[in-house]
């Protein structure tokens, strides 16, 4: 363990047990037996913490936690406001070692306390008033303005020229859109019908194609057979001598015929 560790540990332990240190307390609290001063001191610390919290709320981004903190601040404020009368009574009491001016000053301080307590921002300044109904709300937030200024007679809910025109235009466009959609739907119906008819026609033709396929296969094989046989036959003819003899004899007959007819 290093020296620094020892030092920090000692510091934290001392801080923890500071409240048992009578001398220190007496020092901190100048007017130890003065109840007023004690209470006043407590008040001050509480107001300080509340103000700090209010500052934190303004910086807070999470609305839920902001709301919770505001609620706490309001609770603190309520408690403090309750204890103000107690403080006032203490303020009037005479304590030894206290001058009259100090007494008057204490009174003033106590009187100023409620105002200070109220001044702590808790996020509800003027809030509840805005949710009231259509009652004249001049006391509400200054940045919301109602054009009507509270006059809600018969004219107010009557259609203005612009709004009726707008409504008309809206109706016309809606009708046009419906017409367009009707035409599209008709076209789609026709397409659907044609497509399903085509589907059925193709289904009809599938077995026919299969038949054609098999028949053509048969025909091609027949042709192939025939071709082969023809080739064999022609080869046979060509290779034999009979072919040449046929031609020679033919020439002789033609010659004799020509001689006879001349």
């Amino acid at each position, binding site marked *: 363990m290093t020296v620094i560790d020892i030092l920090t540990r000692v510091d934290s332990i001392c801080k923890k047990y500071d409240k048992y240190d009578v001398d220190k307390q007496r020092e901190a609290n100048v007017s130890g037996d003065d109840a007023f001063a004690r209470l006043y001191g407590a008040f001050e610390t509480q107001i300080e913490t509340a103000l700090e919290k209010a500052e934190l709320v303004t910086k807070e981004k999470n609305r839920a936690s902001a709301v919770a903190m505001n609620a706490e601040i309001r609770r603190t404020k309520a408690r403090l406001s309750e204890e103000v009368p107690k403080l006032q009574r203490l303020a009037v009491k005479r304590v030894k070692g206290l001058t009259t001016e100090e007494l008057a000053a204490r009174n003033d301080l106590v009187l100023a306390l409620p105002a200070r307590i109220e001044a702590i921002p808790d996020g509800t300044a003027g809030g509840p008033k805005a949710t009231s109904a259509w009652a004249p709300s001049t006391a509400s937030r200054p940045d919301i303005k109602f054009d009507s200024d509270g006059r809600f007679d018969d004219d107010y809910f009557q259609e203005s020229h612009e709004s009726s025109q707008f409504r008309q235009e809206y109706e016309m466009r809606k009708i046009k859109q419906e017409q367009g959609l009707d035409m599209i739907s008709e076209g789609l*119906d026709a397409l659907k*019908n044609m497509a399903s008819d085509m589907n059925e026609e193709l289904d009809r033709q599938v077995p026919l194609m299969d038949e054609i396929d098999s028949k053509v296969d048969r025909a091609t094989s027949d042709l192939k057979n025939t071709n082969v046989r023809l080739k064999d036959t022609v080869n046979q003819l060509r290779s034999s001598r009979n072919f040449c003899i046929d031609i020679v004899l033919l020439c002789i007959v033609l010659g004799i015929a020509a001689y006879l007819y001349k």
Partner: protein
Amino acid sequence: MSSDPEKMMSKADKMTKLTLTRWSADWRGATELYEQAANGFRASSKYERAKVALEKASQGQVMQSSPWDAAKHMESAAALAQKLSIWDEVADFYRKASELYVECGRAQPASDALGKAARALEEVKPEDAIQLYTDACEILEEDGRDQMAFDLYRACASVYIKLEKFTDAATFFLRLGVAADKCDATNSQCKAYLSAIIVYLYGHDLKQAEKCYNDCSQIDAFLKSDQNRTASRLLTAYNEGDIEEIKKVACSSTVSNLDHAIIKLARKLPTGDVTAVQMNAGDDLDEDDLT
């Protein structure tokens, strides 16, 4: 070869006739001559003679055991008969052709032949046409080619509509529905059912239409379809006596996708007195009736 068809005909006739000198008819030669004669006659526009020549040619083919060619000749003969407007012969020839096709084992041409016959006779002899259509459909169904039968059913139903026999027309539409069901042709099926309902309504038969609608609602494919919605709208409009609504439904796109004849019927709806058709509420069961 003599180019005179008459001479060819007589020659061919001689070839087929059995005489003392000829013990067996030469059908092959005769058939060839008959065919040529027929071509010759057709070229010179002697349709009557051409028809006779084709008949004989067909017979020759039968004798030669080639039913396909025979059937083809029969069809040509029938077409000529149609041109000459000899309706009985048209029907006969086409029937014979169809039988020959069936002999070949080819159901499609058989039914095609009967279909052609029926179409030819639609104007003149509608009952015969209907009979021919029915036979054609049966041939196709036996062969399992229901899809080809759709057009025939539709044509037959339109003939019935022309004859104003609405119940029969609706029956045919339902038969179309059955055939479509076998082939999973849901669109045609639903259209057929909607057409049947419209036909019933046109025939002033609301009860039948509703019964038909209830029957068809049992079928999933119809239940999920646009046609189902249109049918229910139409029937509720009828029940409420709302003429405007009926007209609106009749002009809707679903109805416009049906057959032309049906569209015409739908546009003419409502026929008769719609207000008299309203349901009486008193017939309904009492709410407290717990039986």
